[in-house]
């Protein structure tokens, strides 16, 4: 028995050490990747460059091994590994043991490294169409980033550190993180954040080469699209998690953590659009490079500023000031070097370019103006309390949601008003009147929808109805582009269908993404304007009402769950006497987490709307019968808030599958006679 146990531990020991070793190997390989790629570029040696690429693939595999080793430790609950002991218990379900890998600071940095080297490997595998020199430098920069972050992991944040006296039971993963949505949220978010590293590396490589042209923009676009789509889903998942676990309808708080993910999203959205201009018209070159640098800068800044504890946030879960400072230093070094290079080289970039205000590029420039101002506003609002505190330490201030409502929202509203025009304007010289003519039907429909809402919705809120009209404007405007392109109504129906089928995927992607934006606006507007809430102290058998619904507390029973015990309520909802659904909110207590209690909400999905019920602490009412505070919420159209971003990300993916955007495309274009060959835009 004792012998068997020792063997078991021995095996565990080896695997965690294997992980630590793999991580060091990854560091060495990343160094090799950087040095060999640089040498390959300098000596124009395909051999050296190939060796650098091989090292990049090796670094990814090494980090993957380290990651799997840590996962293995979590799965086996090997509490001799400090990170496992601090972030998991034997009683957790297997799913949370696995997702616990990235629940801690060390683990999440390891995930960051995995994605970073993963994208490095992707450049090697899918970057065949890049010019040799540019590819070598891109792989080099990506390697340099990997050296910085893997180096940090090895020397300051190793997830494989051992405990001399392993505890019998570990500290559980924070109970509120024990949720399927939250568990898959970080991987998406990190793929988004780190996806921008490729764009960053491409920009730095192009600056070193001193050549940025339309072809470069074409190479940047698929990577930016990939990162942006992941980030969209990642942010949406975080928002959805906060919406359905925390109750009270909060899906966005302008909290520093949220802002941190939103800033790269805005910069990425601006980059997607400016890269189109650079690709099609050869202009805005410097600006596109700048955005490519800024998108990843904001990703790093956001992640680690929050991690460092410099900014306070509701949901900063892995805060560690000491190591945060190291991370911020690393980020500052990488970013400082990149922007110094930009300042040095930017003046040499050709193609500042001129454009007509009424043209596709004019619309895209306006899009960039507003998106980047919005991004700067979020950045300022997030950092301003810090700046003020440094200047006048005695009088700290707060910058909260009301500030963003007054600054960010107007900027976004103007942006959204312009959106439908963009795709309908031609390059160089657009016809505003023709575009306006194509949009007259969507505009009339949107207006009608707004007016109907004004007549029907109680309480009456004119601004909210205008917001709804804006959402419909985006959806119908996006459809109008398809109608215009397929000449609906002007040619035979079959011909229209044929044209619709022949549209490039990029066009479908644009339509879907813009319509998704509209769906989001509808949900956001409706939910925040007409949500209802009610809280009542109920004993079993009593009822309360919310909106048109009536809720009856049937029973409350104690139950045992995985890693917690709970009070389980059964509540039946009805409307005009007709039963609608049964809700079962719980009040959970986690003995392993010092008796921390969480409230498990129960949701009844009614179309796009949610009826949402939570259970709060029990109390004796005057008649000495046990009673509970039942909190009920009605969130109309709330699902649209999350469906919208999913459509946007899908639009991104569909665009990505466009023949013209495939990673191999520039070569084909070259064969046809130069990458600048004009093609119809999507």
């Amino acid at each position, binding site marked *: 028995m004792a012998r068997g146990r020792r063997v078991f531990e021995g095996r565990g020991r080896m695997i965690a050490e294997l992980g630590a070793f793999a991580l060091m190997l990854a560091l060495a390989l990343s160094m090799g990747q950087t040095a060999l790629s640089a040498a390959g570029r300098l000596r124009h040696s395909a051999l050296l460059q190939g060796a650098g690429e091989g090292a990049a693939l090796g670094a990814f595999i090494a980090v993957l091994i380290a990651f799997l080793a840590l996962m293995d430790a979590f799965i086996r609950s090997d509490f001799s590994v400090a990170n496992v002991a601090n972030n998991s218990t034997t009683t957790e379900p297997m799913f949370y043991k696995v997702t616990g890998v990235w629940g801690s600071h060390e683990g999440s940095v390891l995930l960051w490294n995995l994605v970073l080297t993963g994208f490095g490997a992707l450049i090697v595998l899918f970057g065949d169409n890049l010019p040799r020199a540019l590819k070598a430098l891109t792989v080099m920069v990506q390697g340099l980033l990997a050296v910085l972050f893997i180096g940090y992991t090895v020397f300051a944040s190793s997830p494989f550190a051992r405990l001399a006296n392993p505890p019998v039971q570990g500290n559980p993963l924070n109970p509120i993180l024990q949720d399927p949505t939250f568990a898959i949220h970080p991987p998406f978010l990190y793929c988004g954040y780190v996806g921008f590293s490729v764009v960053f590396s491409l920009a730095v490589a192009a600056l070193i080469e001193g050549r940025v042209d339309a072809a470069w923009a074409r190479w940047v676009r698929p990577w930016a699209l990939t990162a942006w789509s992941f980030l969209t889903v990642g942010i949406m998942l975080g928002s959805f998690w906060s919406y359905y676990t925390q109750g009270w309808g909060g899906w966005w708080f302008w909290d520093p953590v949220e802002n941190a993910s939103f800033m790269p999203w805005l910069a990425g959205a601006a980059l997607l659009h400016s890269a189109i201009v650079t690709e099609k018209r050869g202009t805005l070159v410097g600006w596109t490079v700048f955005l490519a640098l800024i998108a990843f800068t904001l990703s790093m800044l956001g992640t680690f500023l929050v991690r460092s504890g410099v900014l306070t946030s509701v949901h900063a879960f892995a805060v560690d000031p000491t190591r945060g400072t190291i991370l911020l230093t690393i980020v500052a070094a990488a970013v400082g070097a990149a922007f110094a290079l930009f300042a040095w080289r930017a003046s040499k970039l050709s193609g500042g370019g001129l454009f007509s205000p009424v043209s596709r590029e004019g619309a895209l420039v306006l899009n960039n103006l507003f998106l980047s101002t919005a991004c700067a506003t979020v950045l300022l609002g997030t950092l301003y309390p810090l700046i003020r505190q440094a200047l006048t330490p005695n009088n700290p201030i707060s910058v909260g949601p009301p500030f963003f409502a007054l600054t960010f929202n107007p*900027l976004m509203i103007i942006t959204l008003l312009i959106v439908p025009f963009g795709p309908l304007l031609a390059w160089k010289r657009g016809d505003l009147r023709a575009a306006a003519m194509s949009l007259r039907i969507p505009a009339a429909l949107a207006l009608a929808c707004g007016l109907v809402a004004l007549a029907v919705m109680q309480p009456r809120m004119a601004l909210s109805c205008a917001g709804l009209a804006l959402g419909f404007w985006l959806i119908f405007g996006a459809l109008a582009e398809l109608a215009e392109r397929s000449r609906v109504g002007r040619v035979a129906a079959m011909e229209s269908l044929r*044209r619709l089928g022949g549209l490039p995927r990029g066009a479908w992607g644009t339509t879907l993404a813009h319509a998704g934006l509209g769906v989001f606006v509808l949900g956001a507007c409706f939910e925040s304007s007409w949500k209802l809430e009610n809280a009542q102290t109920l004993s079993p058998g009593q009822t309360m009402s919310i909106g048109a619904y009536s809720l009856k507390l049937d029973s409350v029973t104690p139950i045992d769950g995985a890693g917690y015990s709970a009070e389980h309520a059964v509540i039946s909802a009805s409307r005009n006497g007709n039963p609608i659904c049964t809700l079962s909110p719980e009040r959970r207590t986690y003995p392993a987490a010092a008796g921390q209690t969480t409230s498990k909400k129960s949701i009844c999905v009614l179309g796009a709307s949610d009826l949402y019920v939570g259970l709060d602490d029990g109390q004796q009412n005057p008649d000495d019968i046990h009673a509970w505070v039942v909190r009920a919420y009605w969130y109309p159209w709330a699902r649209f808030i999350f469906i919208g971003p999913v459509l946007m990300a899908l639009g991104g993916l569909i665009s990505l599958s466009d023949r013209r955007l495939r990673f191999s495309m520039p070569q084909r274009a070259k064969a046809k006679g130069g990458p600048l060959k004009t093609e119809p835009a999507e």
Partner: protein
Amino acid sequence: MRRGLAGALAVAAAAVMLIGAADDPSDRLKSPAEESRARALFQQLRCVVCQNESIDDSEADLAQDLRRIVRTQIAQGRSDDQVRAFLVQRYGQFILLKPPLSPGNATLWLTPLVLVLAGGAYVWRRSRAVRREEPALTPAEEKALGRLQAPAGAKEAPHSEV
């Protein structure tokens, strides 16, 4: 340090989880109009000991106290501004989630406007320049263009597909 980290986690978690208490049945003001004014104010006031929450969202003891103060003062007939002024006097500007437009905060409030105006002016100048630099075609050029376009047939539509 580990313990400190775990402690911080617990605090953060507690701050997040115990939420939604602003609407406790027993605390509500009698007049619905006053109660909705109170709720609107809650959303603009920071729970000063919490990580980053309004007193509408937080169930910290202090948030509870602050809600009681706001409700009491509203019931006594004070205006929103008077309530805010009272709280600022007590807790400093930190309590306001919407910083006042004061000379000290001018940078914060005006930067977005300045950025969009400056950017807009720059874009406008660049787009005007194009009209000056790209004069209309001369009659001879028009004719040459017509010759070039003739074999291709009709004028190219703006959204021709592949």
